[in-house]
């Protein structure tokens, strides 16, 4: 087998097959949105797993990211006597980029991988086949609650990440840059209230939340698709879990660029 054939059979074909399965699962989940009321208990459980359990980590990470942004940008601004604008920079940076991105990375690493591992284990233990034999709609029963939960939780977590990040930035603004906290907070909130021209909502905040919604959907679909294609026992589950996190990172980074381009430029 020459290298070109190997490239095709080992990388290109599996990649195309997996992409096709993932897109089909995305379409299948969207087509079953009407089933959500039936899946409400399962949806709540998944929201708790994905959101509430990740909350304390998110608070910690967002607080420090807010401080880092404030610290790095604040001292540069201070050189030009512009440190009073730090509130605007921290809030816009958190709302547009840092909060959606950090939430996506956190969810891909925790919830996306957990979904791949959970569904992968069910797949290799024939539980998914058992559901199919029992005529249970696997997409509606297993995939939809997970996808809906992450799609809903991602923007909620992002909102909290923005709030906590702005406060983290405020700590640096007060302690390191000698600014008044009220003035900092006022500037942060004023900049977040700036309305969009096309859609009349606070542009930066809602743009970030919209990105987060799409990230949550993509991460959960990728995690579920990887899990449902697991094979070869425990080793196979390990591979699909790793692939779920890797693919989610790649897709989030690409979507982040594309959506940023569409929303703000």
């Amino acid at each position, binding site marked *: 087998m020459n290298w070109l054939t190997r490239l095709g059979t080992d990388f290109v074909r599996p990649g195309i097959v997996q992409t096709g399965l993932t897109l089909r699962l995305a379409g299948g989940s969207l087509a079953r949105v009407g089933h959500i009321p039936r899946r409400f208990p399962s949806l709540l459980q998944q929201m708790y797993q994905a959101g509430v359990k990740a909350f304390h980590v998110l608070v910690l990470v967002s607080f420090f990211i807010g401080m880092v942004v404030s610290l790095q940008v604040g001292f540069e601004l201070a050189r030009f006597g512009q440190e009073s604008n730090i509130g605007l920079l921290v809030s816009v940076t958190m709302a547009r980029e840092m909060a959606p991105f950090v939430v996506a990375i956190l969810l891909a690493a925790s919830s996306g991988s957990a979904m791949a591992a959970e569904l992968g284990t069910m797949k290799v*233990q024939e539980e998914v*086949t*058992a*559901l199919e*034999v*029992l*005529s249970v709609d696997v997409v509606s029963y297993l995939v939809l609650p997970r996808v809906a939960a992450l799609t809903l939780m991602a923007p909620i977590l992002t909102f909290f990440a923005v709030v906590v990040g702005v406060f983290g930035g405020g700590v640096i603004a007060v302690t390191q840059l000698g600014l008044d906290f009220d003035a900092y907070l006022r500037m942060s909130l004023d900049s977040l209230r700036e309305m969009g021209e096309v859609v009349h909502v606070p542009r930066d905040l809602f743009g970030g939340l919209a990105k987060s919604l799409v990230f949550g959907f993509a991460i959960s679909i990728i995690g579920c698709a990887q899990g449902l294609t697991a094979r070869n026992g425990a080793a196979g589950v390990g591979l699909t879990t790793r692939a779920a996190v890797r693919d989610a990172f790649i897709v989030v980074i690409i979507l982040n660029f594309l959506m940023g381009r569409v929303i703000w430029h």
Partner: protein
Amino acid sequence: MGYLFQHAALINWLSVFENVALPLRETTSLKEEEIREKVETVLGQVRLLDAMAKFPAELSGGMQKRVGLARALVTEPRIILYDEPEAGLDPEMTVDILHLLNRLKEEIKPTTLTVTHSLDCATHLGDRIAVFERGRILMDAPPDEVLASPLPRVRALLGLAE
């Protein structure tokens, strides 16, 4: 069609009751009382009424198999496929599950298709036995005839060759 999986394939996070009720909840519009009645009936048939609230991880291999059987029976299928019903069970549990399957055969009278490597299991459960090798049927006959088969390959596969 009902299907008893080799390793039961129960849903881990559901109790015994929920596992058996699952196909009724997902594929029928029965009321909760009707579902409870049907589930309790089949769990009674497999003698697991006491274990209704337990989870699969709390059950022995034999009990898991019986839950799998109850789940296969609850939709009242006309055909049931048993995949290695004795696999992974100790001799005592094997006898137990074979007696149970025989009793159900008399009570419910479904058409059953059993895939097994065990001659004991095949002769206990089968009205006809088909001997396979590499996807080909070497012999298809009632148990007595299969056991008395003169075909050397059939005797070898069944462990009857001298």
